[in-house]
């Protein structure tokens, strides 16, 4: 704000006085101007940095997104592979289980095997002369367990004519002896269970019981 002095009497003095308040006001303006500049520059810097940061983050996000898509694709492939492989493994395990069971069954059945032809052969080789075997009969029941196989017995019935040169009782005794003689043989623990003399046929009828060894 300016005041103009008009001197009508004296020299015209072209002087101008500024109001101290107005003077003070002009200095505040300049400072504000500086503040404004600083603020604008600061805002500009922050804004530019923000834009830069935003672009950078956007770029990184897009890169990461692409990587994630690729990774997901790989993961899907891997998952498919895993499903197939686990199915394959499952089948293998199932097959293994069946095979192990087959082995178990086979071994169980093999344990029940008994060489009957060997038993018959053994009897044939151990019968003394003049003894006629009429019947070979199985007693007891063959079971699947090895231990229980011991209960399996054979009843051998036969006759020996009394008019022969060899003594009949000696021959029967020899037969029992032969059966018990070899400890590794299939038949063991032979004993006489019945001995009768048949007057009509003039022959001794006998029955021998023998155990069958399981192994």
């Amino acid at each position: 704000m300016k005041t103009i002095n008009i001197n009508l009497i004296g020299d015209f003095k072209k002087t101008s006085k500024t109001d101290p308040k107005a003077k003070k006001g002009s200095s505040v303006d300049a400072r504000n101007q500086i503040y404004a500049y600083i603020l604008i520059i600061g805002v500009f810097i922050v804004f530019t940095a923000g834009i830069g940061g935003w672009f950078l983050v956007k770029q990184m996000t897009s890169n990461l997104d692409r990587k994630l898509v690729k990774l997901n694709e790989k993961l899907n492939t891997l998952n498919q592979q895993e499903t197939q492989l686990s199915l394959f493994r499952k089948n293998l395990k199932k097959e293994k289980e069946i095979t192990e069971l087959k082995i178990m069954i086979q071994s169980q059945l093999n344990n029940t095997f008994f060489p009957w032809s060997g038993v018959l052969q053994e009897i044939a080789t151990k019968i003394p002369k003049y003894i006629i075997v009429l019947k070979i009969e199985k007693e007891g029941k063959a079971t699947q367990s090895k231990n229980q196989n011991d209960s399996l017995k054979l009843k051998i019935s036969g006759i020996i004519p009394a008019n022969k040169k060899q003594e009949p009782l000696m021959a029967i005794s020899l037969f029992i002896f032969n059966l018990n003689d070899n400890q590794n043989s299939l038949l063991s623990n032979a004993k006489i269970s019945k001995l009768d003399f048949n007057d009509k046929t003039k022959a001794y009828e006998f029955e021998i019981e023998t155990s069958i060894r399981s192994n």
Partner: protein
Amino acid sequence: MKNSKKTILITLIPAVLTLLFITQVLFPAIQNYNDLRNKFIETKNTYKETQIRVEQLQNNKKLLTELAELNNKVADFDIQIPSEFEDEFFLVDLGKFSINTATKIIALDSKKEKAFEINNPNGDQDKTSKKNKHRRKKQEEQPVYPLTIYEKPFEIKTLGHYNKIINFVSCLENYQRKFIINGVSAEISKNDEANPNPKIELKIEGSTFKAVKNTETTELQEQ
């Protein structure tokens, strides 16, 4: 004074706009990036775990070798214990044995098939008293195997000289199919009693077997 205020106010507008930009655009973008990064790390970990599992699964060689070894042991299982009794073939084979050993099959009696009890050697611990109770319990708790074995008992009567009959029994023992002889009984043939070298009548009790796959068990296991 008014001008300077105006100037400051005007300069504040970009500042506010910048602030808005930072809060509404930049921060959410960073947040989004962080979320994506976490997701990526998570997926990467899952991928690594899956990769390890797949590598482990790919290492099936050991299992395959084991299986091949086991299969070698039971290579003839399907011949020994077929899936059906196949009596027609059994009869043909019996006929062959009889011709080859010069014996004569005079009777053949087949009995009703029954399930064969599979004894697991690992599960034989309760062999103590109270057998009946335990047996009943055991039957109830019998594990369901993927295979069931059925046994068909036979009674074969054959006629021939003693040594020929031994050969016939031997043929049955060495038969490619599993034929378990449970017992034999022999006696001199009544028609041949007067003969110094009489023929023998041999009764053979034995069983053939068949193995049936349990599809229900397999399905249950799969589930």
